[in-house]
């Protein structure tokens, strides 16, 4: 039996999409492991945060009062995790990349290459606008060694940034956020309880106050 043409077309389109996705991954991350760790880290935090919020919400053994704290804690955790992970990790990684690209941080091979390059002002090495990758002879003279060194520094920087953001900055921020949220929600719950006391359904306020006055000992909140 012959495969219908639209299915063949669809499979071809899917195969093309898959091939172009693989090429994009190769182009974007094939030589940049530090960037990959930052980007996939952000995605990972988004997905795991979703699961953690659900885990608290559906855990029957956690009392309601604790849930009031823990659910906002998880949401706060997610937002601060994602933001601080990206901002801190990306900043640390970018700074580390800049240090290597400008020649502020180098290995002996890069130093030797910079010594050999003619026509550059040596006093500019290590300054903000200096860029080793734009020098004549970069591709043939130092590219491989430079990339190895830069990738190592990038990965270390990504790791340091992610430890600082996820394990120190985030827990402090999320606890502050969650405890403030807990106080607000408990105050709201108390307020709602009082509202119910003051104006139960089907009774006017005056009538209810009379009842309270007459039967205050039987009242159960």
């Amino acid at each position, binding site marked *: 039996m012959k495969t219908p043409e639209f299915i063949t077309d669809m499979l071809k389109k899917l195969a093309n999409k898959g091939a172009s996705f693989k090429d994009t991954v*190769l182009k974007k991350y094939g030589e940049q492991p530090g960037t990959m760790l930052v980007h996939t880290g952000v995605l990972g935090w988004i997905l795991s945060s979703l699961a953690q919020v659900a885990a608290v919400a559906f855990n029957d053994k956690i009392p309601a009062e604790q849930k009031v704290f823990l659910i906002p804690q998880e949401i706060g955790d997610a937002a601060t995790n994602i933001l601080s992970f990206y901002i801190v990790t990306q900043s640390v990684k970018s700074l580390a990349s800049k240090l290597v690209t400008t020649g502020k941080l180098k290995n002996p091979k890069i130093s030797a290459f910079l010594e050999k390059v003619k026509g550059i002002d040596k006093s500019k090495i290590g300054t903000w606008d200096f860029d080793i990758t734009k020098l004549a002879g970069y591709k043939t003279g130092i590219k491989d060694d430079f990339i190895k060194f830069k990738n190592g520094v990038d990965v270390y920087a990504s790791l340091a940034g992610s430890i600082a953001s996820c394990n120190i900055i985030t827990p402090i921020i999320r606890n502050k956020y969650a405890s403030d949220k807990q106080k607000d929600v408990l105050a709201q719950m108390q307020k709602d309880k009082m509202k119910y006391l003051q104006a139960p359904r089907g009774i006017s306020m005056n009538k209810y106050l009379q009842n309270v006055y007459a039967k205050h000992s039987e009242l159960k909140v």
Partner: protein
Amino acid sequence: MVSVSSINNIISTASSGLKKPNVFKRLYNKLPNWEVTSDKLLTHVENFGKKCTSAHQRGILGATALLTQPFIDARNKDVDEKTRKYSVARTIAKIIAGTLTGVAIRYGCIKAMNWKPFLPSRWQSLTKDVQDQYKNAMGTIVSLVVMLFTNFLIDAPLTKFLTNVMTQNQKGDKK
């Protein structure tokens, strides 16, 4: 009336101001240049850049999280004692569950990238380092898709189970 020369002066001042490096750049430029000369350190840095996968990153993050996060939660004076204990138990449970599943799934998916359908067409022309980085990147992306399900099927129930075990132990301690 504003003269042409004064406008020119303003423009030239502004443009010369743009050329001046800002405070951050000036601070950066004042930092001393540093050359890493230790062969041992250089080899370690370069190998780490090549070999560190997202599974390693997740493992290191989990281990350091156990050293810091429970203590931060335990010192949170903004909540009552009971909530604080739940919070610490949950944080520990979350770190253990998240790290175990995160490392295992990332590791498995990166290993699975040797399978041909995941490899790009010009695979053979790539250097060993680029091949490894590609497997690491693609494996991590695939692991995130897998974790869409395992977060709910393994991570969340395991966190719930571990939290309950730890909070039950705390109740038992009181007795």
